[in-house]
């Protein structure tokens, strides 16, 4: 069984590297022992930012075992073992979990893990600490026994619900962009089901209004720009906030746009607002540590607590895209105010739950106050909903045009 699995892996990876090699960036990472002579001890194959599992198994002479269901892979080395679940970003070792930036998965037929597996999971298997030197593209391994597993206990796992939820997952195919770097847009009609959202004086429900606008926008984006559009809900049912972000992440969306209708304590308040995520000073401070770890596949931390670090990485996922999110918000706000002649209440930043963890430029737009009687009436008009959708298409086109070429892709995780 074990041998069969390893052979399968190798055959699969050889087969694929032959067939679709040209579309993928294939590089290698050299392995070096810090304690030993420092000479090369092998290399790992990196395909488009992910490491081929087969090359890890052979480079470190690991033993593997697959459970009867065929979706659980145990890697066993001199230092211990870890377990991976197909389609899940979790690494399990000694009863603790670590969360990878992407799942262990078959991406274009190639079974692979994201780069951070090397520092998060591998140390517990080979019993050595692991440091990634990005400049040299080298993996530096510490002395025997220095490797440890920095996981979280299962009770911390609910923080990662959006990484784990995989219902809406569609396998990643890297197609040519349909509209200047834009391939997939995820639209999120706010609320739904038991969550009505805001309610207008004559009974208009936010959840119905925003679904209608989202569907119009979906049609326009598909017809005009030819991009793929995924809705986080297509009817009146409840979808959790983290689940919405997960749908965007799992679809590898290039943009995430959450569509809401606003409310105020005073009826007179009206106009348009666009929001993107805010971070507090303490968030930013903590994220610096996390980013060092995440980007450079970091130093084997000693004093740093992994559970905290993992939580920060999740909360901070949007930070990497915050400038783009700000620009997108500005374009949306401008388009709404100009084309609909509404009151400009500005672009704002707030800790919006639905935007946290989004790994792409992400915005929440409030298309008007249904608590304002006049605006409630206009929002119900089909023609006005079309105008809103049209303004949002224009905003997305403007945003995309103003991107530095290649910027959107470079910022992808």
């Amino acid at each position, binding site marked *: 069984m074990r041998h069969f699995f390893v052979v399968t892996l190798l055959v699969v990876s050889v087969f694929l590297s032959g067939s679709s090699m040209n579309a993928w960036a294939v590089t290698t990472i050299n392995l070096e022992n810090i304690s030993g002579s420092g000479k090369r001890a092998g290399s790992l194959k990196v395909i488009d930012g992910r490491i081929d599992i087969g090359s890890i198994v052979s480079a470190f002479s690991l033993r593997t075992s697959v459970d009867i269901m065929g979706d659980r892979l145990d890697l066993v080395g001199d230092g211990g073992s870890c377990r991976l679940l197909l*389609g899940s970003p979790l690494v399990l070792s000694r009863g603790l979990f670590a969360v990878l930036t992407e799942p262990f998965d078959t991406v274009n037929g190639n079974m692979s893990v994201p780069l951070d597996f090397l520092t998060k999971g591998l140390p517990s298997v080979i019993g050595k600490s692991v440091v990634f030197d990005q400049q040299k593209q080298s993996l530096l391994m510490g002395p025997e026994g220095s490797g440890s597993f920095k996981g979280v206990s299962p009770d911390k796992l609910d923080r990662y619900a959006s990484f784990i939820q995989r219902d809406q997952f569609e396998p990643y195919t890297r197609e040519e962009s349909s509209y200047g770097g834009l391939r997939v847009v995820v639209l999120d009609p706010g609320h739904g089901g038991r969550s009505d959202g805001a309610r207008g004086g004559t009974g208009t429900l936010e959840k119905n209004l925003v679904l209608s606008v989202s569907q119009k926008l979906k049609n326009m984006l598909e017809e005009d720009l030819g991009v793929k559009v995924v809705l986080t809900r297509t009817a009146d049912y409840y979808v959790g906030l983290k689940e919405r972000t997960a749908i965007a992440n799992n679809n590898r969306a290039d943009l995430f746009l959450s569509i809401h209708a606003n409310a105020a304590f005073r009826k007179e308040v009206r106009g348009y607002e666009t929001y993107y995520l805010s971070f507090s000073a303490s968030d930013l401070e903590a994220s610096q540590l996390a980013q060092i770890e995440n980007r450079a596949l970091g130093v084997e931390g000693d004093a740093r607590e992994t559970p905290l670090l993992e939580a920060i990485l999740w909360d901070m996922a949007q930070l990497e895209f915050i400038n783009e999110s700000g620009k997108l918000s500005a374009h949306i706000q401008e388009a709404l105010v100009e084309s609909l002649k509404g009151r400009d209440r500005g672009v704002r930043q707030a800790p919006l739950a639905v935007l946290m963890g989004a790994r792409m430029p992400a915005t929440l737009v409030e298309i008007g106050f249904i608590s304002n009687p006049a605006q409630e009436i206009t929002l119900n008009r089909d023609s006005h909903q079309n105008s809103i959708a049209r303004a949002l298409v224009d905003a997305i086109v403007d945003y995309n045009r103003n991107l530095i070429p290649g910027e959107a892709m470079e910022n992808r995780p």
Partner: protein
Amino acid sequence: MKKVLKMLGAGAVVVALVIASIVIYRLMSGYEPVPSTVRGPGTALDEPRVIDLYFADADGRRLALEAREVMVQGVEESVLQSVSELLAGPRKKNLSATLPEGVGVRSVYFRDGIAYVDLTSNLSSNHPGGSWAELLTVYSIINTITENFAEVARVQILIGGRERETLAGHIDISRPLPGRVQLLAGDWR
């Protein structure tokens, strides 16, 4: 290749189990109720103090202050009184309330620089919704506490004795938040 396909299918099953187990775990791990504040015996008499309450301005674009005198004694009692004043709404005509009517404070608990403010569950059910109204509610509570009581660095809002993801679907209150004093100037960035 067959194997790989089979693995993908089974992966979905196991992930469903993972999700289920998380849900079960969440259900089983009960929330530890926040102890209500009880005034200790033999403490000193209340002292009057002027605090700034954070309401919304009439235009609904920024937070605005109203000074009010409360009798304070200890952080928890003081926070409780301030939030109660906030819940009562503004007295100045040109200010707007930031909380729905009829909401009460269940308890206040202070530990390690964080004030836990537990409000009755009608804060959610009576809330008008909308990012704007929710922002006002959250930051009028947080700012009123952090800007008046230096001991409090961050505020965790609880609803009906429980930690909630949001009040009405927008602003994340699942963790303690620091104040944003610049909202007084209408600076929302």
